[in-house]
């Protein structure tokens, strides 16, 4: 597809996914009981669990790296990823910082937190449900890529190789970000019960 006509279905799919996500969150939003001012103060005063705090850091690092890599690739072009060695190394570096940083602040300390007894059953339940968000983000990313690549390279009949590297990298990073998103949403929804 010539020009920027391929952007229309991509944007349409992104908007469609966003609408579905908003409807899902609105339907899943827990009914918050009426709280007294004292109860509200207690809830606000309670310290954030260590896992939740680490998930926020993981999200900041992962999403920051994703946004920076996306900005560089969109301004310089995906083909430059293959043709310009310093540019490729820069993007790869950002990818690795996002990936290892996210794993380093969210996943690696779990063993220590468990050993110190700083994870309770609600933390474990939230952690166990996080892969749902990972799978959702990974699938959404793949769906967007499917539409984008199909529309952009339909006439050419083949996808240039650099796009596949960027595709794999973006999906891996999205899945890592998904863990942090899943943990944050799990705490946000209150972790309704211990059994799932």
């Amino acid at each position, binding site marked *: 597809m010539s020009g920027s006509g391929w952007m229309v279905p991509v944007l349409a799919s992104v908007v469609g996914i966003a609408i579905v996500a908003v409807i899902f969150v609105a339907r899943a939003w827990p009914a918050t009981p009426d709280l007294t001012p004292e109860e509200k103060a*207690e809830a606000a005063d309670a310290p954030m669990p260590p896992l939740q705090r680490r998930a926020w850091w993981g999200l900041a690092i992962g999403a920051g790296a994703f946004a920076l890599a996306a900005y560089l690739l969109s301004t310089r072009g995906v083909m430059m990823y293959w043709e310009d060695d310093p540019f490729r190394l820069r993007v790869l570096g950002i990818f690795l910082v996002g990936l290892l940083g996210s794993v380093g602040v969210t996943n690696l300390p779990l063993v220590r937190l468990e050993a110190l007894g700083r994870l309770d059953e*609600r933390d474990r339940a939230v952690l166990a449900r996080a892969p749902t968000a990972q799978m959702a983000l990974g699938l959404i990313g793949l769906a967007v890529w499917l539409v984008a690549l199909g529309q952009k390279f339909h006439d050419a009949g083949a996808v240039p190789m650099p796009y596949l590297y960027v595709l794999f990298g973006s999906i891996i990073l999205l899945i890592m970000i998904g863990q942090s998103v899943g943990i944050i949403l799990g705490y946000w929804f*209150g972790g309704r019960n211990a059994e799932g």
Partner: protein
Amino acid sequence: MPKAEISNDIRRLRFEHDEMTQQALADQVGCSRQTIVLLEQGRYAPSLALAFRIARAFGRTVDEVFSFENEQDGPADG
């Protein structure tokens, strides 16, 4: 299946036990203070093990601390 909720008297029992703090109860039963806050607000249903530990912390049985409410049947004794 009708919607079911688990309510509890943790808040009242804390005050009856020398105004035990949420943190003290959390430390005693092995959970975070945030979990105790959510339990008292009825926003979290605990596992059976945590329910037993909380009941034991107050020297009560589980059904003296927690009650099961069913939208269809109304509150059950607990």
